[in-house]
């Protein structure tokens, strides 16, 4: 960043529009602004702070508008306040402007009420096109990070804070920020957040559910195997029982005294089977009728109600209507009534006939009503037919049931006769046959139950398999999230190491340079260092191993702080201009704006600091008080300053022609 020009308009004590240009000469890169105490040097420093951060570090921070401008404005009039800075940054020419407008609320109002405010940041790109940054406040803070405020725009009277015992945080932050290490710092913080997001995903999708489901599936399969084995055994038992039963019946068919009855029983069984089949057919017919036409009895109340309504409309003469809509339309089109009256537009007769449109019936509606009426009659007939068909089927089934009962009775009688047969082998055979038949029935039932159990188990297994697939998918998501979380953690750790390494490298580098600059100014047995804990301290070598003491002089600490800031600015510039890959270590070119940098320095140090100013940054702006403007300083400054301004303060206490205080920027020297 290289400052070109600053323009102030009614900002604090600067009345009207005033401006200054900054020196950009390589050897005389210092811009000096000097003035008496209270002339506005710190206000000038605040103009930068206000422009970049919308902040004021002075007393009465809300009094932005110049008092004289406010006094001269009429009540309800407005005073425009603005700070405009032209600068170059990363190959672009920028113009930044912050503007606020204050309304004077009464004749004695010198502060004004904020009426409007805006900030803009325009630039000319490398092709010469004028463009605007869409988010100027953020962009300004990006160009000149707020955290670096105290480094770029520093107050010389408090700069020694950096080398105070508790200044290490500021020193560390300054090193980190100015060297562009915030990219690494931010990446560490953000990767930590991203890792947390992945961990939440693991929590959401990962569980022990899959293992539990696999166990359940195995249990179900085991139970299924047991049931299938039991089913196979039972089917075998039934097959054997059936065989034995067939053998017993064959034997009964062979024996003379049972042969006839056994044959009759076999015929009866065939008949019984036929009758049972017929009963099943009848049941199918009943089910089919109920399925196809079973709704009719339930629909009948609605059908009857609709029929009643249509009947009522017919009774009232609404169906069919006495006039057809088409007939009315035809009369209106012909413009003549059937009585011969003209039906031209605007006549009462036409309006009267047109009124019949609403009363006339639609032929479509009437046709629909007629169709519905016909269909209602059919529905009634269909319902009656359904009842008749069902009655007929029930009657048939009743007859077949009777036939079945009779066949069964005869079969039972045969069995009784055979059981009571005198021939021992016959009655034993019959008893055995009865037992076998009973066993067969029990086995058949058991097979049915087992088959049902197996079907249920199969269905349960299918469900578990689906759940396992879902859980496996969830598990895969959790596993992926776990890998991603690991990668985020790995990257964070790597960047942390990189961050520490660069920070330490820079600290070492800064350490050497700070001491170099410090010793060129101080020229004593003092030396400056930045400790491992980032404390900037000044030590005095007393010539023994433990002979190092920390210096307490404010002047020396001020020089050390100045050397530190200058070092950071020059390192950032070197990094920015180097050809090294600088994805995360960009550096930058920054000016140095110092308010009262010679406050606590004796004349020798003032002279030395003055002579070294051009080396401290690519551009240096020094705001210096009249009391510090010693011969030594002025002499050195003449050699290094490219441009010099004086702040001329107009004090109403000293000049009766001045009603309100104000400051003018007066250019004194220009190279």
């Amino acid at each position, binding site marked *: 960043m290289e400052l070109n020009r600053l323009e102030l308009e009614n900002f604090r004590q600067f009345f009207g529009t005033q401006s200054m240009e900054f020196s950009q000469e390589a050897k005389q890169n210092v811009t000096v602004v000097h003035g008496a105490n209270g002339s506005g040097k710190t206000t000038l420093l605040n103009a930068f702070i206000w422009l970049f951060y919308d902040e004021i570090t002075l007393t009465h921070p809300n009094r932005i508008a110049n008092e004289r401008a406010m006094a001269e404005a009429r009540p309800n009039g407005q005073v425009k306040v603005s700070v405009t800075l032209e600068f170059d940054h990363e190959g672009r020419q920028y113009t930044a402007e912050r503007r606020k407008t204050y309304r004077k609320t009464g004749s004695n109002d010198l502060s004004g009420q904020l009426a409007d405010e805006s900030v803009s940041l325009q630039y000319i790109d490398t092709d010469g096109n004028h463009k605007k*940054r869409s*988010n100027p406040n*953020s*962009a*300004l*803070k*990006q160009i000149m990070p707020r955290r670096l405020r105290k480094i770029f725009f520093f107050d010389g009277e408090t700069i020694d804070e950096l080398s105070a015992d508790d200044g290490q945080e500021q020193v560390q932050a300054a090193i980190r920020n100015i060297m562009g290490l*915030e*990219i*690494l710092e*931010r*990446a560490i913080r*953000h*990767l930590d*957040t*991203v890792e947390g*997001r*992945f961990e939440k995903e693991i929590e959401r999708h990962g569980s022990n559910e899959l293992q539990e489901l696999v166990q359940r599936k195995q249990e179900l399969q085991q139970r299924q195997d047991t049931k299938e084995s039991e089913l196979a055994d039972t089917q075998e038992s039934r097959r054997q029982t059936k065989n034995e039963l067939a053998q017993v019946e064959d034997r009964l068919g062979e024996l003379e005294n049972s042969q006839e009855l056994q044959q009759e029983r076999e015929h009866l069984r065939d008949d019984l089977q036929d009758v049972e089949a017929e009963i099943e057919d009848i049941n199918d017919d009943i089910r089919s009728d109920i399925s196809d036409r079973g709704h009719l009895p339930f629909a009948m109340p609605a059908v009857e109600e609709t029929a009643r309504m249509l009947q009522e409309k017919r009774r009232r003469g609404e169906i069919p209507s006495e006039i057809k809509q088409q007939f009315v339309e035809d009369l209106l089109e012909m413009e003549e009534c059937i009585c011969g009256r003209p039906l031209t537009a605007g006549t009462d007769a036409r309006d009267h006939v047109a009124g019949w449109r609403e009363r006339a019936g639609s032929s479509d509606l009437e046709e629909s009503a007629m169709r519905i009426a016909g269909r209602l009659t059919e529905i009634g007939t269909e319902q009656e037919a359904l009842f008749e068909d069902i009655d007929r089927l029930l009657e048939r089934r009743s007859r077949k049931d009777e036939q079945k009962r009779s066949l069964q009775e005869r079969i039972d009688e045969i069995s009784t006769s055979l059981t009571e047969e005198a021939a021992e082998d016959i009655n034993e055979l019959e008893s055995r046959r009865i037992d076998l038949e009973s066993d067969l029935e029990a086995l058949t039932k058991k097979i049915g139950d087992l088959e049902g159990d197996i079907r249920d188990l199969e269905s349960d297994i299918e469900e578990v398999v689906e759940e396992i697939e879902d859980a496996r998918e969830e598990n895969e998501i959790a596993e*992926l999230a776990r*890998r*991603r979380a690991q*990668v*985020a953690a*790995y*990257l964070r750790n*790597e*960047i942390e190491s990189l961050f520490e390494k660069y920070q330490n490298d820079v600290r070492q580098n800064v350490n050497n340079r700070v001491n170099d600059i410090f010793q060129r100014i101080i020229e004593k047995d003092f030396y400056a260092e930045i400790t491992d804990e980032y404390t900037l301290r000044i030590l005095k070598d007393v010539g023994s191993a433990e002979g190092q003491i920390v210096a307490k002089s404010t002047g020396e600490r001020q020089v050390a702080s100045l050397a530190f800031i200058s070092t950071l600015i020059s390192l950032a510039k070197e990094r920015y201009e180097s050809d090294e890959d600088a*994805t*995360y270590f*960009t550096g930058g070119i920054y000016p140095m704006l110092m308010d009262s940098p010679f406050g606590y320095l004796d004349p020798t140090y003032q002279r030395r600091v003055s002579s070294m100013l051009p080396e401290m940054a690519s551009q240096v702006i020094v705001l210096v008080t009249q009391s510090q403007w010693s011969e030594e300083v002025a002499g050195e400054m003449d050699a290094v300053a490219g441009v010099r301004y004086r702040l001329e303060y107009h004090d109403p206490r000293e000049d009766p022609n001045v009603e309100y205080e104000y400051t003018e920027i007066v250019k004194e020297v220009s190279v």
Partner: protein
Amino acid sequence: MQRLMRKVLEAERDKLHMGNPLGINDDLQSIIEDEVN
């Protein structure tokens, strides 16, 4: 992994350069998701 780290740092740099850091966590998450799948 070096490539991934470069992508992450470039995303940070670009966001910072734009002066609008909103959405950087989403961006970094997407970078990792695209690489680890």
